[in-house]
């Protein structure tokens, strides 16, 4: 039985592009790798979302590939969006597909949170100044 979603030029191109991205990663060409992963991810996403619910294995395989490629392109927000979109129709996924996507959502959410914490200023001088004023005011009143 040939699988009509995998028998498309788009599926073959996505697979080849993702492989080329892996080779670029091996060659330490991160910019090229990300761009190639991004192209593969777009194709895999379009394919995964087009698979009907009565083919959960195919939808899962293409969906996990899509999310993995978005993440390797560094687009964790997009990866989360696609994963959540696929998980919203969880009956259309295999058990493995659901498990993999949930694991990916957990991992990428942690990464995004860690990055957010890293880029936000650790302290806010204005607040410190305000707190100092309040502390002094309270101390003086008590005294």
């Amino acid at each position, binding site marked *: 039985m040939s*699988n009509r979603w995998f028998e498309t030029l788009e599926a073959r191109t996505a697979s080849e592009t993702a*492989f*080329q*991205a*892996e*080779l670029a990663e091996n060659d330490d060409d991160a910019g090229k790798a990300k761009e190639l992963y991004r192209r593969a991810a777009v194709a895999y996403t379009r394919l995964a979302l087009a698979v009907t619910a009565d083919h959960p*294995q195919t939808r899962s395989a293409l969906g996990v590939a899509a999310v993995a*490629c978005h*993440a390797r392109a560094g687009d964790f927000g997009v990866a989360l969006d696609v994963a959540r979109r696929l998980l919203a129709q969880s009956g259309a996924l295999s*058990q493995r597909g659901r498990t993999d996507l949930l694991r990916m959502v957990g991992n990428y959410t942690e990464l995004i949170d860690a990055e957010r914490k890293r880029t936000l200023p650790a302290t806010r001088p204005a607040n410190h100044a305000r707190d100092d004023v309040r502390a002094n005011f309270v101390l003086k009143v008590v005294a």
Partner: protein
Amino acid sequence: MSGPLVFDLQVLPDLPNIGTVDGNYMAAGASFILEHNHQAALQDPFVLDDGGDGSAGIIRRVAIDDNVRRFRRDLNKATEAGAEAIGLLTVMHVLGRRVVNRTPTETGADFLIEPIAPDSTVEFERVEFGGIGDSGESTLARVNRKVRQMLRYPDEPPGHAVVTNFTTMPIEVAMRRVS
């Protein structure tokens, strides 16, 4: 078995759904790791443990191409690519399968394959490959480990695990069905 198996690495780039770049990369990986572990040669004997009677044959190497710089830098990559090459030739020749799609990194399988037989109702099968390039792990231990990993999901379609040990002579290939 009708006769000894011949795994010709040269055919990989011409197989459907593999692609020239990928096929050449895998074939070069196998040839590189064979030369690294043994010596320059045109072919190597192998034995196949399929969990049954088993069989034997030869692996025909290719000239190592531009990919050699990648493999010199990272022997694991050569082992991995070589294991994919021998694994694909095994499922093709022994099981009558063809490639549906190579799955990207971190997706839990190496390739999706399907039976060549036109009356098959299988949507696709997963296949995972493993290679032993320099460690002391036995071929059987590695293939059993792969099988255990693949058994985690009971609703999965059938799958296959193929492990190639490039350190032994003859080369050892072990294959198990997971269902």
